């Protein structure tokens, strides 16, 4: 692999998936009850994108990874304590909401602005990574718009694998319908890759990497500019938790034979 990439990973924070979420009406639109109190994690698919970026950078000498993250500074700082242990990167922080109820277009504008401001950005070596969908808005929209704002028309979503050839060409596997992957060849950077789960395990914590990262993370957080991100033009008529709660019938003392008969009758509509 001869190309030294500039890999920019876009990833924000979301509430820990095990937390109970409740929507409430906020001053400017819907929000989550006690949002600032909820424990947060890096958005899961962006998390995978970060591992893939680190792996690619390791295999392409001279490459560098940036993590561009929009979120409330205090929450970003908490989450970075964990993320920093996993892979070497330079943080570019933007202070703003990480809510799912903001508009992708406004988030993308803030992210693209931060990417353009990275010193020495070289479009011919640029790969923009991120999760293909967030665990908050889940629209799969932000990465596309970031790509458009950067003038990148080679975009891939739901990526599970990226293989880079000796000539810098890329083979990309994207998720499509029915448990299949579409295989594409791209001549090379620049490109946008919205990652799904990828193929790499979560790296173990590395305290040395963590310490090196933290030296850059704290100044990055201190100098993070505020971004005005909202949902202009959108009116939420309602945001509600699903009301459907099932009256679960718990069957404890039925024999396996009877359970099997009942399941088969249910499956076959007998």
């Amino acid at each position, binding site marked *: 692999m001869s190309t030294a990439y500039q890999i920019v990973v876009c990833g924000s924070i979301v509430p820990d*998936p*095990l937390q109970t*979420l409740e*929507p409430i009406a906020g001053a400017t639109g819907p929000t989550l009850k006690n949002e600032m109190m909820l424990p947060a994690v890096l958005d*899961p*698919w962006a998390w995978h994108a970060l591992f893939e970026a680190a792996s690619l950078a390791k295999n392409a000498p001279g490459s560098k990874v940036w993590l561009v993250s929009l979120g409330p500074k205090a929450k970003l700082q908490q989450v970075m304590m964990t993320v920093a242990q996993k892979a070497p990167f330079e943080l570019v922080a933007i202070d703003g909401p990480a809510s*799912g*109820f903001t508009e*992708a*277009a406004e988030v993308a504008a803030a992210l693209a602005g931060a990417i353009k401001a990275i010193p020495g950005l070289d479009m011919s070596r640029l790969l923009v990574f991120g999760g293909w969908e967030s*665990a908050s*808005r*889940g*629209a*799969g*929209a*932000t990465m*596309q*718009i970031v790509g458009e*704002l950067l003038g990148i028309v*080679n*975009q*891939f*979503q*739901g990526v599970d694998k990226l293989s880079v050839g000796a000539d810098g060409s890329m*083979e990309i596997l*994207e*998720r*499509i*319908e*029915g*448990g*299949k*992957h*579409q*295989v*594409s060849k*791209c001549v090379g950077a620049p490109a946008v890759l919205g990652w799904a*789960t990828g193929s790499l*395990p979560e790296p173990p914590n590395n305290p040395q990497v963590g310490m090196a990262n933290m030296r850059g993370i704290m100044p990055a957080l201190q100098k993070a500019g505020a971004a005005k991100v909202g949902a202009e*033009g*959108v009116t*939420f008529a309602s*945001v509600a*938790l699903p009301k459907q709660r*099932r*009256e*679960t*019938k*718990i*069957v*404890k003392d*039925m024999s*396996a034979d009877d*359970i*099997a008969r*009942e*399941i*088969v009758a*249910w499956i076959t509509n007998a």
Partner: protein
Amino acid sequence: METILILLHVEKEAGLAKLALETLGAAKDAAGASGAKLMVGLVGENLQAAANQIAGCGASRFLGVEGVEFGQPRYGSDVAAAEAICRAAGATVVIAPATSRWNRVAAGLAHRLGGRADTHVTNLTSEGGGLTISRWYYRQRMEAAMRCTQRPWVIALEAGCHAPWKGDAGTAKIEAVKVSLTEAANRTTVTGVKAPASDQQTIRPDAELLFVAGAGWTKKQADGQTHAPEAESLIRGFLQHTKASLGSSKSLVDLSKDGQAVLTLMTHLNQVGQTGATPRHPKGLSTCCHGEEPHAVGWRFINERRAVNLDPNCGWARGKADVLYVADAFEVMRKVNALLAAKQGK
């Protein structure tokens, strides 16, 4: 008055997919209720047969971008084609089926048109003359109904949310829209599709039943041993008998990374839940899975739900399943498979 453009891509072999016809049905209803103008935009290698298939849909114009280079589902050519069609139509609302192909470009298209995009839309209504959509937030944990004043508004509609359009075929007159692709758009070439062998295919979006195998299948059983090969054989047998679609919880998929016993028929693509799929099936049967929230959110669109688990206090017992059988899934599924085999005369 809105101008609604239904944006469809034509499948290489099958013409218009079912989801395309569902989208057409939803868009027609929305247009009818609001008095909007309706147009159809088509992208693909050959368009006429598909246009003829929906010639009787009442669209005032059929616009198309046709050619070999537009048969490939890739961002650069699809977004350029869609942009040209939307501009030619003067569309204020663009409704597309939420296929992987349109999901890849919906937001980029909206950006180029100076509008907004909403994907994974599950309902579309025209109340009081204005268009309202429903979509889920935080991975299917809360549902919002919303309107947008920005135009054009690009909406990608999910599968199974509306009855497919049915109507007369005929001969449609397609207005060709010219698109010149840039050199950058041609840097990507789609070379094929990677799919499991047909007898190994476990993800079946149109199946009546979702069968979820949780991590318990690979854990130590009553005899203190794991029984992954038997688990795999039982699951395979069940899938062969029922043609169900196979799902897994995240933990089961992750076992393959952790060096634990694994089920070789599982991949990340089978994962249902927070970082997996949210499939739509009339029924779902969960086995050896605790029904924790990150997984159970993927069951949002499964109508009838049953679970088999040894823990009577698992997540399924807390209002997430209709029936929870507290039992050993190995034993139950052995008998289920035997009954199904007998029923099918095997």
